[in-house]
């Protein structure tokens, strides 16, 4: 375990750690740069070392020349410094070289605002470039594949994307072609960059050379807020960051979690934000009467539907998909079991034959974020029903009312149509889900459609394929009237919605015994302050 001193701070690292890894931090502090930041483009913690950008120069005591931090291994007693004038000068000149052929594209570049070049330029910028030559023109707006657009002029040839396709996705589509200042990123023989993880190249691109087709020109990044959550695209449960503003959600990016997804996420998971956006959601609840559809407030609809569910009692059935949180399952199943005395709770599994599929990196065949969590709760209440029980119950008429917690990501439910057809045989159908569905809206009979909150609008826990429970926080509210499954469960059994009291952190629960109360302070302060009327 060699010890080194970085910017005056003593750090103990593992054998074989490079200087930049030591500076990047490890364990709890990973990514926090505890000993000070160092400028870098080509180094990425999840990729191999290339050492091509020459920006992470550091001064090592006793070494006459500056060294790159990403490819120098820490040795015992090394004294490293990256705040000296020599280092700053090196970074400044390194940046100037990067910018020789960089176009002044920032106004139309999607990366502007989160661009490595902009960031470093503000820090070390050399505001008077000394390059008198004309800039080399390269290809712009190159269609690399179904998800990514390349602009080779903006590229600084850090080779992060090339190494990503080589090492992580192992598809080897990208490469650097030509030599010198004519070098360009490209795909061999014009083959498209088409793999399930291609958008990660956009994330790791430190400049705007690779941009996402989906996000392209839709927002400037400084208009977006971000918040961490868990991807609900499949049972891997990648930690992600969603970017949103009041117009809706715009993109999803991965967040590092060593246990789950590392630094990456799949392209499929980057599309799930669309199902949370307003235009794809039910805004109002709908009730089918003889006169047609009647729009209602979701809460009122759930209450009304609750009367039907209550009258059905033990003849009511609950169908759950694996797309809700553990807390919600707990709440609605306990309501069903304790209040309605019905143990007819069924698990609607989409694509059960593919559930165990795994592509070797992140993507799993079980397209529900919380199948494990649902099974745990079902087990807790001793429920072991099969779908055939429901089919039989519907046929014999013992199940009259069906409450369905439908899927949030409907594209992952190829059996949606069949299930709607099957469940609509029930006398009363109470269907709760967040997204629009035209098949449901075409139903006749006693139907309630109740809008639900999406995964970004609630707190909760997802249990992933490995049994790892991951808590996440609410990001924002898209449709404030929509209900969570827990709220809907309460309303369905006739309970009122109540704000659950949380321990107040501002008021002490117990007054300390030595606290003196002055007599005149006992007065109602509001009256006291208001003065005479």
């Amino acid at each position: 375990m060699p010890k080194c001193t970085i910017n005056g701070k003593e750090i103990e690292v593992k054998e074989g750690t490079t200087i930049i890894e030591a500076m990047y931090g490890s364990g709890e502090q990973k990514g926090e740069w505890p000993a000070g930041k160092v400028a870098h483009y080509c180094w990425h913690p999840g990729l191999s070392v290339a050492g091509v950008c020459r920006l992470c120069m550091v001064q090592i005591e006793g070494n006459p020349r500056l060294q790159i931090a990403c490819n120098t291994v820490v040795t015992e007693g090394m004294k490293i410094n990256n705040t000296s004038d020599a280092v700053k000068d090196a970074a400044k000149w390194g940046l100037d070289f990067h910018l020789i052929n960089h176009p002044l594209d920032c106004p139309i570049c999607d990366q502007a605002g989160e661009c490595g070049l902009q960031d470093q330029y503000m820090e070390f910028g050399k505001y008077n470039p000394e390059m008198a030559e004309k800039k080399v023109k390269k290809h712009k707006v190159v269609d690399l594949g179904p998800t990514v657009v390349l602009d080779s002029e903006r590229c600084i040839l850090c080779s992060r994307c090339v190494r990503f396709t080589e090492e992580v996705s192992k598809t080897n589509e990208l490469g650097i072609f030509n030599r010198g200042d004519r070098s360009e990123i490209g795909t061999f023989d014009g083959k498209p960059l088409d793999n399930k993880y291609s958008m990660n190249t956009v994330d790791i691109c430190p400049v705007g050379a690779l941009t996402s087709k989906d996000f392209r020109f839709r927002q400037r990044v400084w208009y977006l807020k971000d918040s961490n959550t868990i991807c609900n695209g499949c049972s891997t449960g990648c930690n992600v960051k969603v970017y949103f503003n009041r117009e809706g959600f715009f993109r999803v990016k991965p967040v590092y979690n060593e246990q789950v997804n590392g630094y990456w996420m799949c392209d499929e998971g980057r599309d799930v934000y669309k199902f949370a956006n307003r235009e794809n959601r039910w805004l109002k609840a709908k009730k089918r009467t003889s006169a047609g559809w009647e729009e209602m407030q979701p809460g009122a609809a759930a209450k009304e539907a609750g009367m039907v569910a209550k009258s059905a009692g033990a003849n009511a059935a609950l169908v759950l998909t694996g797309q809700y949180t553990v807390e919600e399952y707990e709440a609605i199943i306990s309501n069903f079991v304790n209040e309605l005395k019905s143990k007819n709770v069924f698990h609607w599994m989409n694509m059960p034959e593919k559930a165990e599929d795994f592509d070797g990196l992140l993507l799993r065949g079980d397209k529900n974020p919380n199948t494990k969590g649902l099974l745990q709760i079902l087990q807790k209440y001793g429920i072991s029903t099969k779908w055939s029980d429901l089919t039989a119950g519907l046929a014999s008429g013992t199940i009259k009312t069906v409450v369905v917690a439908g899927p949030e990501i409907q594209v992952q439910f190829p059996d949606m149509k069949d299930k709607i057809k099957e469940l609509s045989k029930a006398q009363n159908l109470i269907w709760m889900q967040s997204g629009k569905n035209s098949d449901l809206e075409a139903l006749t009979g006693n139907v309630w459609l109740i809008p639900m909150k999406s995964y970004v609008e609630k707190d909760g826990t997802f249990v992933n394929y490995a049994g790892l429970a991951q808590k996440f926080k609410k990001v924002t509210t898209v449709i404030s009237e929509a209900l969570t499954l827990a709220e809907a469960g309460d309303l369905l059994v006739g309970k009122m919605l109540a704000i659950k009291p949380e321990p107040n952190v501002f008021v002490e629960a117990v007054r300390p015994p030595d606290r003196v109360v002055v007599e005149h302070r006992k007065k109602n302060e509001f009256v006291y302050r208001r003065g005479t009327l």
Partner: protein
Amino acid sequence: MSVVQKNTSEASKWYLPGILTGLGITAKHLLKNLFSKNQMLTLNYPEEKFEYSPRFKGNHVLTVKKDGSLRCTACMLCATNCPAECISIVASEHEDPSVEKYPIKYEIDILRCVFCGFCEEACPVNAIRMGPEWQTPGVNGANFHYGIEQLAYRPQLKGGIMSVVDDEERNKAGI
């Protein structure tokens, strides 16, 4: 709250001196305007108009390129810089890769605008300027959300004002 101190002196309680002083001032202006008309400040408004300096910040103009298309690249710096938040832009991908990004909607809510000129200061390509027009009343039901048609191609501009920043020239110069 400010406290107004009233003039409570004895002299102010007399009626006629105040009235006569006021009438005197009125008469003085009447005579002055009667005999030297060209120094009179009043304009006969709809026929006569006051000329502001050419630097006056009036209604916005979106400049155009040589071919008459919009100069704006939809970078949204004006909308970011706008303190009144009156600019809304929707960007889109242009067919021509050398243009790449352009606005399909550019709207200024002129009633919210405070005419501070921050938008033209923020613009990196000289696409938005503030012109000399300021008399833009609207009758009942008029649209005060000025779109591209109004901002760039309104009849007063006679086909559009050309921007001074030209991409082709910059390309040739190797920038």
